[in-house]
């Protein structure tokens, strides 16, 4: 691994993005619009947005980054550029981390904008400090990036990559505790929810909005980070220099 090559790759990914201003706007603004829609929907019902708004903040960056990452890396596999990269001195970890870094940066911008919009425009009330909310959103986005990198290894076409979203993302949303406290779920589903990273992301958000401190916030957040790191490691292991 070579930090310079990681940075060169991250810079290249961002430069590619800079040629596509519409994608940047969508990436930065779309989550805010959806949060706004959500806030509007529950505008007549006191307290509902405060209950769901937080977890929603965790979901959007996760979903958006999952999709963007899985499709861009798949494009790289299919265009032949990945094959060419594999004949150069770049290490697989440089490639994966380069993408992680570039999209992680975009995720941070997205999180700052979305949290600001949710709190200042939509009036989301949070007991804990705001920066923690932003931090969770960033970590979730990185988790989405990591899982997207991993998923792209198993997709041969863009069409398949998009199909992975309902497969990988939806069960995590359904079982993550957004619709029903996880403890109230049937035992089998509760056990399954314990091995899904998004459950811990939603736990973290709920802890922040409830004003919990210390381990209640950072415990589940660390679990999310561990999942993201694990997915990144798996993603670089599934990257092959030699293909059939």
């Amino acid at each position, binding site marked *: 691994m070579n930090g310079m*090559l990681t940075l060169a790759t991250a810079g*290249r990914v961002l430069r590619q993005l800079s*040629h596509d201003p519409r994608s940047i706007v969508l990436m930065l603004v779309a989550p805010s619009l959806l949060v706004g829609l959500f806030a509007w929907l529950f505008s007549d019902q006191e307290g509902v947005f405060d209950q769901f708004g937080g977890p929603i903040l965790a979901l959007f960056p996760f979903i958006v980054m999952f999709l963007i990452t899985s499709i861009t890396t798949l494009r790289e596999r299919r265009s032949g550029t990945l094959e*060419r990269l594999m*004949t150069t001195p770049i290490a697989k970890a440089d490639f994966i981390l380069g993408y992680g870094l570039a999209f992680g940066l975009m995720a941070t911008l997205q999180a700052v904008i979305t949290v600001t919009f949710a709190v200042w425009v939509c009036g989301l009330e949070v007991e804990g400090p705001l920066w923690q909310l932003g931090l969770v959103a960033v970590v979730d986005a990185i988790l989405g990036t990591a899982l997207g990198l991993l998923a792209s290894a198993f997709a041969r076409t863009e069409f398949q990559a998009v199909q992975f979203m309902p497969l990988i993302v939806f069960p995590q949303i359904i079982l993550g505790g957004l619709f029903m406290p996880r403890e109230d779920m049937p035992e089998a589903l509760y056990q399954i929810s314990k091995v899904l990273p998004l459950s811990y992301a939603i736990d973290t958000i709920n802890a922040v909005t409830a004003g919990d401190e210390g381990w209640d916030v950072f415990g589940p957040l660390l679990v999310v980070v561990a999942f993201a790191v694990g997915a990144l490691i798996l993603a670089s292991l599934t990257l092959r220099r030699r293909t059939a």
Partner: protein
Amino acid sequence: MDAVSVRDLHVRRGKTEVFTALDLDIPRGQITGLLGPSGCGKTTLMRAIVGVQKIADGTVTVLGEPGGSRALRRRVAYDTQAASVYGDLTIQQNLRYFARLVGARHSDVDRVIEQVGLADQRDQTIDSLSGGQESRVSLAVAMLGAPELLVLDEPTVGLDPLLRAELWEVFRGLADAGATLIVSSHVMDEALRCDRLVLMRAGRIIADTTPDVLLADTGTTDPDAAFLALIERDARQQARGRDQADGSQASADAAEPHPLTRREAREQAEHPHSPAPERPPVAPSSDGESAP
């Protein structure tokens, strides 16, 4: 030592055997043309040489190291058949990125852009270029740094004759500077620009020769006819081989010494007692037997 030495290479793609026991040597400092109908295994062989092809058995030695090993990644450059550059970056941005990866100097970017004749388009994105321009950018990437071996998969496909001629001048310049080039093509008139020709058909090497010997051997004057003659001869041999036992003539070529290129023959004529040539002065047709 040869630039590339392939021994007993077996490659499977899916259920089909692309290569069964392929042997090949490619000498240093020359342009070796890899020719053959599409689907004959040219790209698979090139991928095996640069180390991105999964191989079932056999060895590929490149510049004295196992093919695809870490030490080779700065010394070997590969241009894939489809232009492998980033469509949403400009020419210059693409080349700067790859220059950083292979550790080439910044000034090298300008050099290769000049060499492929795209100086005026350097700030255009690849997506806005024509197909021919795009493949020239992809070729420029392979020329960054000072690779000792360039593996170029159909680098001149879709280019007009003038540009093709210019690029072959560039290839010749690289070879004169000591680099080894392996260039695949199915444009037969390009064959005459190579020092050495490897003709493939259906995963086998049917001739490892030089342009002069190829033309003399087949009694033709144009490379298209020569190539067709070889293919027909090979098809007849295959048919005969099937009638008899399973043919062992499949790829005896690598064991045979290389015929001499024009330059080698000239140098040898000029200095008959200079350091022992590895190859005999007479140029035997690698094809062994002649047509019935």
